[in-house]
């Protein structure tokens, strides 16, 4: 092979694409500190856009609705998604292929189709739309992400540990809670973080399944940015980016911890 110089065109191109990935983020951050509300030119430094959205009661109540939906949906998914992954890893049964197909379907079907189907279902059984219908709809895709994360970890686990616990007189529940769950915890947490971020970000499914009283953050953002460019949205973007960037790094550290444990 030709000598690998440090400045290969791939390195240059990768640098360029890093620029592409961070350009919008840089632009939002830049304008979040710009005094002029509607100009591309820099007119001076200000924090006022940050204080504006932090005092905006509609934004804050939307954030509360978003957190209520995502935390409830992820908590429920963590339980039933983990149980499902364990069940699928442990048992062979008639129709397992179908069950698995169903379990990972939400990862494949476009959001718009899930949103439409859920709305039609709720209308057919005449359930009034509310915060609860949003949570129910979010559990569908959240549990798939949790199960996916847990099942990859289950493959690498040592099954003898649980058998040993059972041989030493533990009940199946004790063996599950005291032996299996601690080993699965990093995978459960990283699955939950991914599900949480996707749930916080979801616009379509919420829009279709939320009742009149529910407005999540993406719904509030959508209704504002569709009309015109709003400088306080820049500040909100930066705030959310820093928060989710932090979550992303925690998730990655969790994943790496899982990965390391695998080779111990």
């Amino acid at each position: 092979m030709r000598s690998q110089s440090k400045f290969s065109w791939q390195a240059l191109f990768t640098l360029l694409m890093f620029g592409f990935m961070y350009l919008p983020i840089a632009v939002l951050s830049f304008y979040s500190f710009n005094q002029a509300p509607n100009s591309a030119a820099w007119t001076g430094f200000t924090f006022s856009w940050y204080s504006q959205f932090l005092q905006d009661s509609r934004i804050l109540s939307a954030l509360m609705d978003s957190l209520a939906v995502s935390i409830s949906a992820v908590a429920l998914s963590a339980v039933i998604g983990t149980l499902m992954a364990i069940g699928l890893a442990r048992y062979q049964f008639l129709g397992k292929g179908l069950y698995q197909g169903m379990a990972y379907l939400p990862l494949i079907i476009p959001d718009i189709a899930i949103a439409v189907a859920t709305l039609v279902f709720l209308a057919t059984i005449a359930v009034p739309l509310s915060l609860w219908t949003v949570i129910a709809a979010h559990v569908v895709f959240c549990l798939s992400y949790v199960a996916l994360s847990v099942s990859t970890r289950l493959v690498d686990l040592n099954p003898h540990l649980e058998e040993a616990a059972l041989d030493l007189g533990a009940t199946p529940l004790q063996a599950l809670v005291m032996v299996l769950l601690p080993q699965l915890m990093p995978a459960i947490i990283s699955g939950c973080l991914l599900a949480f971020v996707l749930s916080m970000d979801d616009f379509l499914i919420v829009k279709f399944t939320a009742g009149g009283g529910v407005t999540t953050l993406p719904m509030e953002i959508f209704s504002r940015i569709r009309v015109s460019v709003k400088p306080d949205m820049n500040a909100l973007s930066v705030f959310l980016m820093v928060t989710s960037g932090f979550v992303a790094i925690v998730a990655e550290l969790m994943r790496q911890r899982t990965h390391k444990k695998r080779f111990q």
Partner: protein
Amino acid sequence: MTSSVPKSEPTATAPSPKWVQPTLLLAPAGIWLLLLLVVPTLLIFELSLVPNINPGGIVNPSGLDNYLRIVQPERLNVIWRSLLFAVGTTVLTLASGFPVAYYLALIAPQRWRNLLLLGFVLPLWTSSLLRSYAWITILRPTGVLNTFLSSLGLPTLDLLNRAPAVLIGMTYSLLPYMVLILYASLEKLDRRLLEASADLGATPQQTFWKVTVPQSLPGIAAGTLLVFINGLGDFINPELLGGTSSMTAARLIYNQFLGTTQNWGLGSALSMMLIMVVSLAIALLIKYGDNHAKSI
């Protein structure tokens, strides 16, 4: 699902019958998915067969009118445009994502790889709406791009509310997925094959096309499929960056349910069509993937 029959019970000392444990593990998620995913999908299939249905109308199958309505020229245009956006985004992400994944997986220093990859996909964790919003700020007539261009004395570009803006937004949203999948595939590449190829006298280009690309084909196929599916169902980028000229299938479906003139039957038919195209793409991948596995 509740009648699952386990073949192997992990313990003989369990006092409960054999079916209790698998049911406890599998029934909650199974029932949830059955009730909120499988039944709803069957319902929209039923609804799609009802002509001119409005909210609150009676579900009563009677024909294929809604599907015939889709193949009328104006709606066929919308579907064609959705496919073009999805294919265009797939090509753009593959062409720009492959060199990046190649660099990150094979050329970058070992200890920086994970960090660089994390850095590349980090924007994925930000709000998808606000990412599109950032592109509005950049691409609008008095935005960052045009300010920059005119300061250089170059002619300005009118990209917002047109197809190029949608393609930029979709490529931006989906590129991290493509890079992640290609990276996973290239990282597993057996480097000895590359060395062997070079030792046997192949040029770097020959090695690339005859060893690297065939070896990473499963990753390319998976990345292509993922981007295509997500591109086809994308609502946010066409809605925010495309203007009225970029109506896509997802936007059309949205309007049938939440727009001013609603038609749930037509919306359901369009949704079924979307699900069918996606299923077809996956079936092709599985078939192609199997053929590929056999050919090796």
